């Protein structure tokens, strides 16, 4: 049972090297936190969008009631009040300000979009109302349209009846078209403007029909239909399992460095002189790293939940996740052996490890989904080019159990594949390390 002695030695070394352990466990946690805070809100449907409103509206008198109205202010308060469906969360955080300041806020991304209400907005609205009153004989349109440019326009064109003037009010939605936050905010705003226009028409029509009454402003124009339980998902829910896989992959660097240290300090030669076999060393040193992989999964998962991961499954899913993580960890240990077979010293092992594991994280889709490159069909599953890497299956399985709360049935293929690929990689690792490091030097 010499491998147990090696394992116990490695565990002691790992635990006593506080700084090293700190790095191994906390570095991925740091990534998790950064990604959690960066993407935690993104994609989530009920988050208020920050909007700056610049109101140039001068107001106008509504002809049939003789009331002076500022429709710009009215629109602003509508924006302030509007809430998500079945929710107490406001759609927008409104900042009323000057155009100059709004531009500044936009540049700093303190606001997602800037809405500029023109000075003739009320006049256009009054014209719309007048037009509606004569709706039997004439047509009126207020168009709310969103263009792919940075400006969105709300136009009111009055072309008949009381006045022959064409009044066009153009509401500008200004923002950075390359910014994801603007894309979402602009989409919702366009919907709200359309709803506002419709409401004016409805309200006027109601009054004419003698049924005055306030109709609540409710402007949900689009509805996202997703998988059950995923409505509240954010990008982070998809990223968190990726972060765990990234951490597991990074273990290869630590394993490579620790094996190379054994070579460099000469302790490996001491062991080589003894009755120790390659198996004892490589199996023995795998045990503590496997435990680290399991710890990584649990710790990172806990951190993810703490910063907003929407956990779907039960305690079973954590157990499954730990098992999946351990298999992924063994793949990383094998990768570490391969790196250690070639690295000349610890620093080289770390650099080489980083050089290999970071691109590998991208390849397995830890950060974002890569374009699909199907190379064939295997056991009824599309086989992507990335599927030759065991960590792709680790990630798919972790996403299944942690993000969607799936059980064993859903991940059995992924786990099976990752076991097979891990075994292959481990054999390669043991072969290369034994060949280069455990024989007499040439």
């Amino acid at each position: 049972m010499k491998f147990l002695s090696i394992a116990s030695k490695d565990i002691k070394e790992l635990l006593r090297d506080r700084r090293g352990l700190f790095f191994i466990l906390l570095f991925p946690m740091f990534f998790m936190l950064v990604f959690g805070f960066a993407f935690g809100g993104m994609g989530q449907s009920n988050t208020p969008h920050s909007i700056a409103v610049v109101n140039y509206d001068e107001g106008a008198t509504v002809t049939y009631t003789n009331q002076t109205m500022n429709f710009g202010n009215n629109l602003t308060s509508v924006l302030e009040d509007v809430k998500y469906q079945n929710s107490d969360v406001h759609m927008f955080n409104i900042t009323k300000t000057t155009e100059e300041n709004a531009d500044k806020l936009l540049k700093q991304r303190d606001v997602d979009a800037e809405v500029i209400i023109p000075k003739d907005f009320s006049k256009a609205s009054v014209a719309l109302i007048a037009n509606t009153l004569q709706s039997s004989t004439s047509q009126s349109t207020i168009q709310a349209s969103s263009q792919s440019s940075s400006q969105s326009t709300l136009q009111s064109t009055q072309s008949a009846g009381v006045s022959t003037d064409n009044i066009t009010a153009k509401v500008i939605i200004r923002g950075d078209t390359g910014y994801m936050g603007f894309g979402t905010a602009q989409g919702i705003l366009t919907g709200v403007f359309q709803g506002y226009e419709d409401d004016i028409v409805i309200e006027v029509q109601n009054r004419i029909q003698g049924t005055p009454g306030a109709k609540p402003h409710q402007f949900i124009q689009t509805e996202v239909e997703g998988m059950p339980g995923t409505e509240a998902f954010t990008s982070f829910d998809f990223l968190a399992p990726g972060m765990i896989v990234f951490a597991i992959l990074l273990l290869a660097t630590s394993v490579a460095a620790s094996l190379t240290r054994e070579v460099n300090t000469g302790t490996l030669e001491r062991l080589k002189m003894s009755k120790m076999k390659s198996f004892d060393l490589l199996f023995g040193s795998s045990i503590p790293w496997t435990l680290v992989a399991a710890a990584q999964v649990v710790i990172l998962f806990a951190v993810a939940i703490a910063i907003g991961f929407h956990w779907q499954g039960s305690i079973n899913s954590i157990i499954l996740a730990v098992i999946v993580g351990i298999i992924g960890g063994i793949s990383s240990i094998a990768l570490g052996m391969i790196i250690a077979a070639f690295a000349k010293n610890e620093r080289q092992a770390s650099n080489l490890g980083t050089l290999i594991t970071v691109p590998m994280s991208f390849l397995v889709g830890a950060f974002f989904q890569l374009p699909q490159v199907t190379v064939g069909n295997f056991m009824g599953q599309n086989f992507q080019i990335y599927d030759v890497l065991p960590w792709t299956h680790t990630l798919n399985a972790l996403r299944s159990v942690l993000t969607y709360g799936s059980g064993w049935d859903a991940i059995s293929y992924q786990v099976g594949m990752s076991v097979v690929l891990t075994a292959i990689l481990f054999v390669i690792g043991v072969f290369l390390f034994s060949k280069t490091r455990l024989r007499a030097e040439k």
Partner: protein
Amino acid sequence: MEYSMEVKNLRKNYGDFVAVKDLNLKIRKGEVFGFLGPNGAGKTTSIRMMVGLLKPTSGEILINEEKIDDVERGKIGICPQELVLWENLTCRESLKLMGDMYEVPKDALKQRINKLLKDLFLEEKANTTVSNLSGGMKRRLNLAMAVIHEPEVVVLDEPSEGLDPQSRRVLWNYIKSLRDDEGKTVILTTHLMDEADSLSDRIAIIDHGELLRLDTPENLKKEIGEGDVVEMVLSDPEKNQELMVELEKLDEIIAVLEVDGQVNIRAMNAVAKLPRIMEQVEGVGVHIADLSIRQNTLEDVFIELTGTGLRE
């Protein structure tokens, strides 16, 4: 005569460079065999081949008449020149690990660990992590780890490198006890003359990968190093050569050498020869800045053989 180890035509080439050149040695059972040579002479390379860590370019090594590749692991214990330790383990844990690796039975291992800790004065530090030991303690632990499995042949590569005199004394006594009490064969490399002189039964002098001489320390001193050595520093070292030419003409002088700017004169009964030597000094027209007479040492033998002092 029983031999622990036989080295036949051992050679190691690194490209064009010949690190070890056709080395032939027979190491007797139960002797302390000294490998003496300057740094870079090929001692460590030879040792690494002799214990099976390095493949020779050609030649063979027999341990108890068995080829080294076929020998059961654990017959040899090597204490490397550098400190080869796990910094985060304690002394006891390190020894236990090595014992486990050599499959030493549990009870025997426990006793052996305690004995080694006692013999090498590490008892108090048994549960201290290696990183907190002093240099001398680390050296002693380095040695203990090489002999935990009681190997037949103990190979020590420059064991007293960097040791304080006190630790060196402990080490020397231990090496002697390995031979005298436990009957082990000890192979020792060193560039320290006094170490080789006082510990070794036989000494191989090696330089540039070649064996220059192999004999007991006494024979070596007698053969090459008869007489006393007069060490002389002249007021004008530029006249050294001129004086040496004159001295070599004298019959009663055995040898004259220039070492580090001083003139070393070897002669039987040197004190009686001093007046003749002084005459020559005056003849060359220089004064003596410093002069001493001492007995011939192994170092003189060494210098005579290698033509140099020890290279550091």
